[in-house]
């Protein structure tokens, strides 16, 4: 390598070789690498050792790059990995995903944040299922590091006078997210997590809550009624208006709603979905 090769040129060359998904030779002779440094110059610029050629030595960094990318993505997306199988998952990540969405963050925790978008923009036959599944898995990953807030207690609930309930606003914890999906992703991922029989992929509307309690992240399926009510409650809508909205949306289910409402709310408070109450009167 000519001694006058600027540092930036050398680093752009090495990065392009490391990130290239092909073989070592393909990486060194790729258009991007050759644009930075012609092959002969690059080859002359890396010292061989007693037992390894320049290509072998850079190859160590190339293998490390792809191993790190695939391992990192496998940690965040076990459901997607199960769907494809390890070999195809690794290929997808190494040859397509990191090429399309190279890491630009200081942390590997952010590497997978574009996976739902990746599937949404793909031409895969199962893209809709995979988009939903990736959304759920990303929500779980993000949940682990959401800000911790104190949880609303039953005592605090009981302290609110009956007549004020209509005008209160419930503030959700930061570590809570609601997802509306078009496939059975919740049951699919749960089965993967529990190593139980995996259900077939099924197109069906499903509703999921992802939340954290005592530093442990959970995901559970909700009914459409629960989803509509919880979405309203956690979006800043007044309590009374949320109940009314639910009744308007499902007028024929009034009796069922009246029966279950208290039980649902009790469960949500016990699970720690809410952080505080805001009084508006």
């Amino acid at each position, binding site marked *: *390598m*000519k*001694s006058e*090769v*600027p*540092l*930036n040129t*050398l*680093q*752009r060359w*090495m*990065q392009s070789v*490391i*990130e290239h998904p092909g073989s070592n030779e393909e990486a060194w002779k790729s258009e991007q690498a050759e644009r930075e440094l012609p092959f002969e110059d690059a080859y*002359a*610029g*890396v*010292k061989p*050792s*007693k*037992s*390894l050629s*320049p290509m*072998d*030595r*850079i190859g*160590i*960094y190339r*293998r*490390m*790059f792809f*191993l*790190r*990318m695939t*391992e*990192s993505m496998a*940690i*965040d997306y076990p459901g997607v990995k199960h769907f494809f199988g390890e070999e195809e998952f690794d290929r997808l990540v190494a040859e397509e995903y990191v090429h399309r969405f190279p*890491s*630009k*963050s*200081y*942390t*590997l*925790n952010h*590497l997978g944040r574009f996976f739902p978008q990746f599937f949404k923009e793909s031409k895969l036959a199962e893209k809709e299922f995979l988009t939903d599944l990736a959304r759920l898995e990303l929500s*779980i*990953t993000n*949940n*682990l*590091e*959401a*800000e*911790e807030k104190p949880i609303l207690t039953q005592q605090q609930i009981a302290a609110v006078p009956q007549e004020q309930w209509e005008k209160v606003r419930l503030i959700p914890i*930061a*570590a809570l997210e609601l997802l509306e999906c078009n496939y059975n992703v919740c049951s699919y991922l749960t089965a993967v*997590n529990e190593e139980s029989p995996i259900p077939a992929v099924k197109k069906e509307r499903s509703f999921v809550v992802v939340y954290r309690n005592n*530093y*442990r*992240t959970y995901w559970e399926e909700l009914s459409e009624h629960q989803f509509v009510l919880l979405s309203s409650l956690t979006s800043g809508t007044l309590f009374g208006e949320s109940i009314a909205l639910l009744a308007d949306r499902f007028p024929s289910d009034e009796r069922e709603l009246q029966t279950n409402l208290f039980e649902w709310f009790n469960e949500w408070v016990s699970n720690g979905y809410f952080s505080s109450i805001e009084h508006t009167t």
Partner: protein
Amino acid sequence: MTPNKWNIPDFGFGVGLRSVHYNHILEHNPKVDWFEVISETYLESGGRTKYVLDKVAECYPIVLHGVSLSIGSSDPVNVEYLKLLKALADRVKSPYISDHLCWTGVNAHNVHDLLPIPYTEESLKHIVNKAKFVMEFMERPLVLENVSTYAQFTSSTMSEWDFHARLMEESQCGMLMDVNNIYVSAYNHDFDAKEFIDRIDPSLVCQYHLAGHTNKGTHLLDTHNDHVIDEVWELYRYAYQRTGGRNTLLEWDEDIPEFVVVHEEALKAKKYRNEKIDPLAFKPAKPTVAPKMRLTPLEKNELVNSTSHKL
């Protein structure tokens, strides 16, 4: 024996704070001198990682060790990253910041590996300027670790140890002397490890790292997945005779055994300092079985700190 330039105290023998040991540490409060944490794991953490770090910081000295400063990159310093790092350093009262003498990407990419730099006057000047900026911003010493490397460039005009020595002399940053990395690089590039150590001004050495590695025959890999071999312990003894007491950390980042095993390994360093190991220094406790939790963010940045043995 030479005191370090900044009078950074010798905390003693530390281990890395790793997620697999969280439960043990919180339950048993082991008698560890200090912990080193991978900065990137905690920079924007809000959940259990933040909780555990805060609990540990209440009871133990903590030093931040990063993997994304990329001081050797031709990219400019990432100020947004430094802001997060400074906030974390202030919060846990880290007496200095350590990272690696390497680069991790250019054009805003991050390859998440500790890549080798050419040892040239251009690199040196660039890194000296960046190091000075970082130290001024962070308001505390910057300590740079020598990395294990698997490639070198013919454009280099000086040795790795001359480069490191000049960098410290011209920027006044400190050195984290990773004795295992010196051993690994010496094997991979066929140089004398002691010549490396001899070139370094002892007063600029702030800390030591010790770790295991994997021998692939044609090269060694810095895998941090095993005990320290005898030859590396002897290099540590050699280096210690020049510097005297410095924070010493045992790195174990892959195939991590129980906490007691890692701690025992760290305490072996006492023997090489001619100190006696206090049998009461650690109390083997019943291993704590961590509940099955999706601790996904906690492991990933720790992967960058070593080379996988799966290569």
